């Protein structure tokens, strides 16, 4: 149970007096409290630092080490204190949690040490208070990422291959991690060198060289030394092609490799050469061919295999794509507006450079980014006015918001991430806390199942009753009193749904076996309570199997979670016939002819009558029971 509730237990139990006049049954006996109720001061010695606290303080959280009987294992008889060989500084925080109900995360402590302490003392980290939760989460995530990176680096790199690795695996390994073998390293550097050579060659071949003897015009070096350059180009392309083919062969998944960015870059880098080979020396096509040579510059991107930084840059751009897109959009808007205005303003001018709106785009962009080339200049007065407005607003529209947008979006992006992160974490947190709470409620149902609610004799508890704290005893007694007051019992969702489904099935003779219709019936039949306290258990699906056809005259009464183990019940026949709770899973029979008394109903006054409907008509006036067993086979 959660914080501090143990303190209020006496009050809650006292308030149960208010139910007494309404109770339709006698209240169960309260649990006998064997220990004395007076409070005492406990001594806790943590590695030499002595703490003292009230016993009640520790009892507040019975599901922790200090609150349960587990601390008895650490009790030192000689010194009459509980000794823990743990960090005394951390214990201070643990003890404060018991005292105040809020767990704080000490910022100067290592997160793993803190978590270990919490695990030792049986406290789940989810109850860290909101004040410290974010810090805790951030540090934890950071830590996890760092550890993940470390392990990844360890694993990825240098673990030796199994000795029976195929050539393919070895090759792939060599390509991906060049540090593993000398050959791979050599290959790595050789390709790097050739990439550089190729790029430099591309650049240099356009530089004008001294003209050959006899002509005046400057020639680009590419044409002067065309043989040399083409040899170089051919060599580079051959090496790149060889590398690409080797990678393709070695790749564990060829499709994935072929689709990866790096492979696309590789292909684009070598394609122009092959296209050039294939294409004839044709005048028309050579223009296009020249364009293709531009793609040779993409060879520079091959460096990203060699450079981590380039890869990170690429990832960053990818991540910021939406922000950049919005920026572009807003700029486009401004450009279009001003271009239109300038065009119409300059329309009247003779010989104007503003020949069309798209032509004005160039002017607008150049003016707004404050470049001002001066190749397009407005002549008319209106044009000049709007031109100056354009350049002024250019500063506002482009120069100011760009950093603001960038920083804003970075902030909003992180905030959103944080909000989503927190929401996701909150859900997980709540789920875990709900699980712990559910544990408490399930504990009651489990306790009933174990037969712990027998009023008969308080001393001889059944062997299967687990050891529970005094608090749990009292809480279960309280819930039991409520059950007696209202003459209804707590069940869990699964049982309830099953019962409801059988309830509804009894009415219908339809042959529909679709689960949706069953669930529909469930909701209509059982959605009577206005307030839905949805108490979702892990598997909340109604698993009603209609596949098996049972024999007509047997009832399979499986062990029901509630209400079957009241051997002492003095209640009337009416109440006990409810024990014929039929587990929907095995029960698809037709009208039952002979009632098989359930194994653990001690009530012998159940008359043997040929038809169950007959019996149950005599029972409680609630029509519920009759519906429960009038079942028609639906198969």
């Amino acid at each position, binding site marked *: *149970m959660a914080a*501090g*509730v143990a*303190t*209020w*237990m*006496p009050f*809650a*139990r*006292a*308030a*149960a*007096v*208010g139910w*007494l*006049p*309404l*109770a*339709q049954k*006698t*209240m169960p*006996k*309260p649990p006998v409290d064997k220990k004395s*109720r*007076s*409070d005492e001061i406990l001594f806790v010695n943590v590695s030499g630092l002595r703490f003292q606290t009230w016993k*009640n*303080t520790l009892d507040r959280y019975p599901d922790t080490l200090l609150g349960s009987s587990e601390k008895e294992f650490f009790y030192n008889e000689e010194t009459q204190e509980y000794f823990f060989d743990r960090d005394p500084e951390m214990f201070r925080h643990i003890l404060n949690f018991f005292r105040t*109900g809020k767990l704080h995360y000490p910022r100067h402590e290592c997160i793993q040490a803190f978590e270990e302490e919490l695990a030792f003392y049986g406290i789940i980290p989810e109850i860290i208070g909101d004040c410290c939760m974010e810090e805790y989460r951030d540090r934890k995530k950071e830590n996890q990422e760092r550890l993940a990176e470390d392990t990844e680096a360890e694993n990825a790199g240098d673990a030796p291959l199994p000795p029976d690795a195929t050539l393919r695996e070895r090759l792939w390994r060599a390509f991906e991690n060049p540090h593993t073998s000398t050959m791979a390293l050599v290959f790595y550097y050789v390709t790097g060198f050739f990439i550089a050579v190729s790029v430099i060659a591309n650049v240099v071949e356009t530089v004008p060289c001294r003209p050959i003897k006899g002509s005046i015009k400057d020639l680009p070096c590419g044409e002067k030394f065309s043989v040399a350059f083409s040899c170089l180009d051919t060599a580079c392309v051959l090496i790149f092609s060889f590398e690409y083919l080797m990678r393709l062969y070695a790749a564990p998944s060829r499709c994935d490799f072929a689709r990866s960015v790096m492979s696309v870059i590789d292909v684009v880098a070598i394609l122009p050469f092959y296209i050039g080979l294939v294409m004839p020396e044709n005048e028309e096509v050579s223009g296009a061919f020249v364009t293709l040579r531009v793609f040779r510059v993409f060879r520079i991107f091959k460096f990203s295999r060699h450079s981590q930084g380039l890869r990170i840059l690429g990832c960053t751009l990818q991540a910021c794509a939406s922000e950049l897109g919005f920026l572009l959009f807003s700029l486009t808007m401004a450009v279009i507006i001003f271009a239109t205005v300038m065009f119409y303003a300059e329309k009247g001018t003779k010989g104007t450079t503003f020949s069309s709106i798209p032509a004005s785009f160039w002017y607008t962009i150049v003016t707004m980014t404050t470049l001002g080339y001066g190749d397009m200049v407005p002549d008319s007065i209106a044009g000049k006015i709007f031109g100056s407005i354009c350049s002024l607003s250019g500063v506002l529209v482009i*120069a*100011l918001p*760009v*950093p*603001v947008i960038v*920083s804003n979006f970075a902030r909003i992006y992180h905030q959103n991430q944080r909000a989503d992160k927190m929401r996701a974490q909150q859900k997980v947190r709540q789920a875990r806390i709900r699980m712990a709470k559910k544990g408490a409620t399930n504990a009651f149902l489990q306790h009933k199942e174990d037969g712990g609610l027998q009023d008969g004799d308080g001393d001889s508890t059944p062997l299967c009753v687990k050891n529970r704290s005094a608090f749990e005893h*009292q*809480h279960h007694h309280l819930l039991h009193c*409520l059950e007696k007051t*209202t003459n*209804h*019992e*707590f*069940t*869990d969702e699964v049982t*309830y749904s099953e*019962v409801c489904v059988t*309830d509804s099935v009894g009415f219908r003779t339809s042959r529909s076996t679709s689960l949706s219709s069953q669930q529909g019936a469930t909701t209509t039949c*059982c959605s*009577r*309570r206005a*307030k839905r*306290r949805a*108490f979702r258990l892990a598997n909340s699906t109604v698993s009603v199997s209609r596949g098996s056809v049972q024999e007509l005259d047997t009832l399979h009464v499986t062990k029901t979670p*509630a*209400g079957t183990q009241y051997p002492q019940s003095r209640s009337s026949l009416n109440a006990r016939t*409810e024990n014929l*709770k039929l587990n929907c899973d095995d029960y698809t029979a037709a009208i039952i002819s002979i009632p098989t008394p359930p194994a653990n109903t001690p009530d012998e006054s159940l008359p043997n009558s040929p038809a169950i409907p007959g019996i149950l008509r005599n029972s409680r006036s*609630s029509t*519920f*029971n009759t519906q429960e067993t009038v079942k028609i086979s639906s198969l």
Partner: protein
Amino acid sequence: MGAVVGTLTMGERTKGERRRPSRDKIDDDFELSIVCHRPEGLDKLEAQTNFSKQELQVLYRGFKNECPSGVVNEDTFKQIYAQFFPHGDASTYAHYLFNAFDSAHSGSIKFEGFIMALSTLLRGSVREKLTWTFNLYDINRDGYINKEEMTDIVSAIYDMMGKYTYPALKTDTPKQHVDAFFQKMDKNRDGVVTLDEFILSCQEDENIMRSLQLFKNVI
């Protein structure tokens, strides 16, 4: 360059502005929550209630820990009570209970009120307990319990059971329960139950008398 500097300064200014309004709000909240209440002396409380000094000490330590300000308001009360009944919705019943504890109708329960009620419920005489229960049921404190009040109380109790009960709860279950109750309690069949009728009927019922003795040793 200028743009960069502009951005940096603008960023800081917005941060500062954002911080200021929230700080004002925190100051306001802080002022309101300093209300504190201390109970009367231990001796006086011991004289007024049926608890021993040690029991009062234990109770007060727990109370003070949960409510450092010394008072419990209705929302906190509802939250606390709801933790005992996670299956269903305990807020309505907690509301009635709160009003029963808060006899002075001040909107908050102080330690004295808490202790007085506990003393009555746990250590009081049968008549005192039944009177307290009657006051719980009599929502409008007019001295009579009528069917509407009783239905409200009983519905609130059934709400605490939650949705998943066996047998399933029906819409008229509270009503049937109330009818049974009036059948038993309303002697002169005038549609309301007075305090005397209530006490008389309860004293006639063995079960109730026996159950009343069960809660002696809660503390």
